[in-house]
């Protein structure tokens, strides 16, 4: 119990690396950092399932692997289903005394396409059935592995290869799908957002998600220099600006109760975030203004939820 109360911080980060230093991620990849930090928070008693994506491709080119913990990939849209089987299998084998009884955290780490598009049915099924698992969405806001195609997590106004900006288009014309709201709608005990620019918040949430009984969902914004077209040394700053502008608020929902983990008295203008990224370079001022208005509105709605539960 004592161990569970430990919170990660500047003076307390495990030195073990569960994902080996050898891998093929791009320089400045936000996702690689998320995986590294999340694995430190999870420790060695885990089984990780990973759908198809950058993370899988960059860590396991046969015959080598970066993984020092049990890891499995099968397909693109089914990681939430495979982890259901892992969790159910472990549980029944322990019940039948076929394997030693112990805590093993069952985790999915998958991209936004695998999570909010093609795998959303399997994820919904696994959450609805109440499996004891943690789902981490490595949200880099497009299909980066296949070459920056749009997903339902791509933000409004971003140019991608399948929703490119052009003479008569601004690129993505839809607002980012709210996966946390979808998770919360399944009445799961824990849902949250995080960003590697706030590493201790991220690690503590991963730990909390691993410890709750039942499904937990964490959506982690993972800046992608290649797809967002920003300098590879700007990953942390861009993640921080996503939070400080209110475009990607950092909050958690415990048993339906909303809490803003990072609440700034004044949000920075979204322009500060947008202007650093090539994917938004084409946007005219009036579109940036539209984004600002929508961000203000979404942030206000989120604060209202927080206030409702605080009251």
């Amino acid at each position, binding site marked *: 119990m004592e161990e569970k109360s430990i919170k990660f911080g500047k003076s307390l980060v495990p030195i073990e690396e569960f994902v080996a230093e050898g891998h093929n991620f791009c320089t400045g990849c936000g996702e690689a950092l998320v995986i590294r930090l999340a694995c430190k928070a999870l420790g060695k008693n885990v089984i990780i399932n990973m759908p198809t994506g950058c993370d899988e491709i960059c860590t*396991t*080119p*046969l*015959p080598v692997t970066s993984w020092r913990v049990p890891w499995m990939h099968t*397909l693109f849209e089914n990681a939430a289903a495979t982890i259901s*089987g892992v969790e*159910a299998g472990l549980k029944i084998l322990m019940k039948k005394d076929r*394997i030693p009884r112990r805590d093993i955290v069952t985790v999915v780490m998958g991209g936004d396409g695998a999570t909010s598009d093609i795998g959303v049915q399997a994820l919904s099924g696994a959450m609805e059935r109440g499996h004891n698992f943690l789902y981490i969405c490595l949200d880099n806001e497009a299909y980066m592995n296949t070459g920056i195609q749009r997903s339902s997590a791509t933000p409004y106004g971003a140019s991608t290869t399948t929703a490119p900006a052009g003479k008569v288009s601004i690129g993505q014309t839809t607002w980012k799908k709210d996966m946390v709201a979808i998770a919360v709608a399944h009445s799961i005990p824990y849902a949250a957002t995080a960003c590697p620019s706030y590493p201790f918040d991220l690690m503590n949430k991963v730990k909390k998600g691993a410890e709750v009984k039942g499904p937990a969902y964490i959506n982690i914004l993972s800046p992608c220099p290649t797809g967002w077209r920003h300098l590879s040394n700007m990953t942390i700053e861009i993640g921080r600006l996503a939070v400080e502008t209110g475009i990607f608020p950092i909050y958690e929902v415990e048993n339906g109760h909303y809490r803003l983990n990072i609440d700034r008295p004044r949000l920075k203008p979204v322009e500060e975030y947008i202007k650093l990224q090539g994917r938004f370079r084409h946007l005219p001022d009036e579109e940036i203004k539209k984004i600002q208005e929508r961000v203000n509105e979404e942030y206000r709605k989120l604060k209202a939820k927080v206030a409702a539960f605080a009251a």
Partner: protein
Amino acid sequence: MSKRIGLEASHAVAEAVKMADADVIAAYPITPQTHIPERLAEMVANGELNASYLPVESEHSALSACLGSVSVGARTFTTTAGQGLELMHEVVYVASSMRFPVVMAICNRALSAPLSVWADHSDVMAVRDTGWIQVFCENNQEAFDLTLWAFRVAEDPRVLFPAMVHLDGFSLSHVIEPVILPEQSEVDRFLPKFQYPFALNPDKPVTHGAFGPPDIYSEAKVAQEVAFRRSKEMILQGWKEFGDIFGRYYSPVERYKVEGAKTLLLTVGSLSETAKIVIDERRAKGESVGLVRLRLWRPFPFEEFRQAVKDTEVLIVFDRCISHGTVAPVFCEVRSALYDEEKKPNVVGITGGLGGRDVSVNDFGYVIDRGVEIAEKGSQRMLETVGIRGEMVGIRG
């Protein structure tokens, strides 16, 4: 003491899963397979079977969940039919390529469109290349026996391939027949506890499902194929040991009244029982006909099949599936299997029994007569069919 009771084939499958003491069942309901998951869910709810039953949200997730449960070493079963097997198609390949020995019963069903819930073999033939051990049941006893046997063979550490047990939808799955259920102690003697050698375990981390760049994919696939073909030995050994314990011996190719037969009819699945009636009638009249039934479909039993048909003059292959734009699948397969033989029968193919269309004793009589006629004179028809109103669709016969 073993006992002999009346059981629906679907329930016979469920009994086998129970006696195998399966750990995880993940399934999605689809006609005509529903009685299998329903019965298993009931057994789990009543405490008769100490297993985890996952009522997943699709067939794709059903087989995906099975990959997960096998990956930690749980004995795992699923079941589907027709459209369900199509929906799980990509997972079917992954199960065999990742060497996860799931056992799956298929209540064979036609494929849409038009929508049909009734039996044919379109669903099987769409997964024939997926690297699963596949057997066809003829009756309820086989449904029980082959399900039990499938766990034994699939989970053998020298095999580690998934296995499909095919039973024709409704015409077998829903039929009640006497089934001999063995003693649990006999089953335990036949089927050891599942020990998956590469289980995901934090004490001994392994990586499953690494991707294959071009410099290694070919070797991975050929290694899989070599292992799959070698599984035949354990398939035969499994049947031998099954027979020694339970008294019923099975073979890859069943032969019925083939002695000296000039004409052989070849079937797969439950229709062979109807075909046997015709063989009996023809034999009684002094005609030289017999029946060959493929029980083992994958890996294809080349040796046993060639041995079974080598002395006959005409081999008539009955298919319950159309392969659009080419010849029917079983016909294609067996004719190819005989191509290099010096002495081989004249092979002809006739298709029928699609989407639950009944194939009667009279129909099989026609199949034999027409088959012999085609062997002698050849066929001028686009398709050789039986029991289909050819005049409605622009073909004769």
